[in-house]
């Protein structure tokens, strides 16, 4: 499988490690309301779609950036790759 890295171009998937659902970017605030409930959902509740899936990949033996990859779990077709940093910033997370 080839992942089109936004900065480095086409790279073999063996250079990456897979973390899972891209919703893991949304780590709950441990000082917010009901943090244990929120962390339970964050850790254990995942969608398992047959089709388009946004997921986190780490370019471990490359430039060590985190990517959000949109992949079809049925065909492995990759339709979009973004830096996770850009995704997080777009969602208003400046830190």
């Amino acid at each position, binding site marked *: 499988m080839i992942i089109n890295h936004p900065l480095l171009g086409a790279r073999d998937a063996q*250079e990456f490690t897979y973390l899972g659902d891209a919703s893991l970017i949304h780590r709950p605030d441990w000082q917010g309301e009901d943090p244990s409930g929120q962390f339970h959902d964050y850790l254990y509740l995942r969608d398992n779609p047959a089709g388009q899936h946004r997921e986190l990949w780490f370019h471990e*033996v*490359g430039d060590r950036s985190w990517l959000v990859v949109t992949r079809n779990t049925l065909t492995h077709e990759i339709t979009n790759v973004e830096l996770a940093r850009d995704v997080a910033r777009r969602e208003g997370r400046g830190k």
Partner: protein
Amino acid sequence: MLKLKSITPLGADEARVDRFTDLTITEVTERALVSLTARNDQADAIRDKARGLLGIDLPDIGDSAMGNTHSAFWIGPESWMIDMPYSGNEYLARRVKHAMGDSASVVEQTDGWCRFDLEGAAMTSVLERLCNADSANLAEGGVTRTQLHHLGCFLWRQKDGFAVIGPRSSAASLHHALLQAAQSVC
């Protein structure tokens, strides 16, 4: 008083050189390495500071900048490796951190890596057998990190050859892989 004696990443007193028909593999030791990563929204600030400290512009993606004795190469988003002769720069990390202040994270990398320089007509053929990187089309100064013998290694195109910079703790494995590929080609 302690009498400490330094050894090379391959565990010897002297840096190793392996010569083949069309290839020379040279273990390079006397280099000091420091990584430099911009903190949030500080990339422009550290570019200015690096220009003042090193006299070179921090390079763009997949590239390197060469000074007289030192250079910097791109290792990740807003992250670079600074490379200098070890002699005279034993406290390079401290010096870089002092110049960068809170705008960057600076990490001493010298003993984390080993380096093998490949020179000769067969160098591209050897690298093609070892990794996915398009070494034949890597322009002078170009640098990329890729998987070589299951190890994350930087591949850095120099004027006359390639520098392969890999994890020091796996120096012997990396050296073995280079020798094996060289033996099959040369």
